[in-house]
């Protein structure tokens, strides 16, 4: 009788992309993200707000709260992603597990910074995440159930790439507006992303999960779709904080 075991990453484990082709595709994806960032700054309300001199304190606090919630909600989905990744590629699963080991408790870094600006852990826990944050977590569930793990991994690549590229600039601005001793958690988070080469680590998983041209096309779409869902969040954040403050002031 034929062995019925499947979905354990057997078979040809050679990646679809050669080492050189993977480097080329990564450069192409980076160019796509760079273009998305330009579009982001042009079209998303208050996209560069944290880089400004006068940071709205409600915007700042709520962004930290949502960031901590996003990490908490997505780590559940990202743990489920490990199961799906392991079915396809044990090599990618090993890389992903290591990446998650480093990221898993990073919500604590943001909660620490919240305490420094007067938001207690109880207050954080009593704050329900925005709908846009829940939608992102829901989108991850959809992807895992119906399209596989590549979209979830694509999100991490997008976030890690953008963090390494833009976070240092934001942290310089926040040191001025919020104070260096109040943003230690965010500095540590950024330090891990850069020094442990998180974009490179996630890309190594991506390379093993791309198994044909259709996956390359899907990856490009995922990057754009994640950006769209994150833009919903930034709109919700600006409406709820800066715009609401302006209304009260009138």
């Amino acid at each position, binding site marked *: 009788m034929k062995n019925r075991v499947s979905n354990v990453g057997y078979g040809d484990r*050679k*990646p679809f992309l*050669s*080492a*050189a082709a*993977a*480097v*080329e595709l990564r*450069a192409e994806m980076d160019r796509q993200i760079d273009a998305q960032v330009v579009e982001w700054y042009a079209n998303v309300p208050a996209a560069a707000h944290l880089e400004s001199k006068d940071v709205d304190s409600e915007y700042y606090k709520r962004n930290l709260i949502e960031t901590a919630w996003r990490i908490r909600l997505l780590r559940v989905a990202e743990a489920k992603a490990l199961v799906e990744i392991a079915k396809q590629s044990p*090599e990618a699963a*090993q890389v992903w597990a290591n990446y998650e080991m480093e990221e898993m408790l990073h919500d604590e870094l943001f909660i620490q910074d919240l305490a420094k600006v007067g938001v207690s852990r109880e207050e954080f826990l009593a704050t329900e995440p925005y709908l846009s944050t829940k939608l992102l977590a829901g989108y991850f569930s959809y992807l895992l159930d119906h399209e596989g793990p590549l979209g979830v991994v694509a999100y991490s690549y997008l976030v890690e790439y953008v963090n390494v590229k833009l976070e240092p600039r934001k942290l310089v601005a926040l040191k001025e507006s919020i104070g260096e001793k109040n943003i230690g958690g965010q500095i540590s988070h950024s330090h891990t992303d850069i020094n442990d080469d998180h974009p*490179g680590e996630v890309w*190594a998983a991506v390379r093993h999960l791309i198994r044909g041209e259709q996956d390359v096309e899907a990856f490009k779409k995922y990057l754009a779709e994640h950006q769209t869902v994150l833009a919903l969040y930034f709109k919700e954040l600006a409406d709820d904080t800066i715009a609401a403050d302006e209304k009260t002031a009138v």
Partner: protein
Amino acid sequence: MKLHTLTLLPDGVEIALPEGSPLTDIEYETSEPLIPFGCRSGACGACVVEVVDGAEALGESDPEETDFLEDLGWADGNHRLACQCRLLDSATVRVVEN
């Protein structure tokens, strides 16, 4: 994109990899497994290589790797676990027979 060459002795097989690639990537460049990788996490000792040339090109060894190599009997500083190395420049290694 910079390519560097890993030369594997005794046969002198040369594999070109992009800068910073983990050495485990050589497995995907040929049909033969040239280094016998096992756990790929520095835990099984299957992938010991003797560094013949270009020690710095393989990145720094962390204390856990060095300790494990010592336990395996390779305390001379010339050996590495290939799965823990990244190719930062061209290098030559010899696979150690277990």
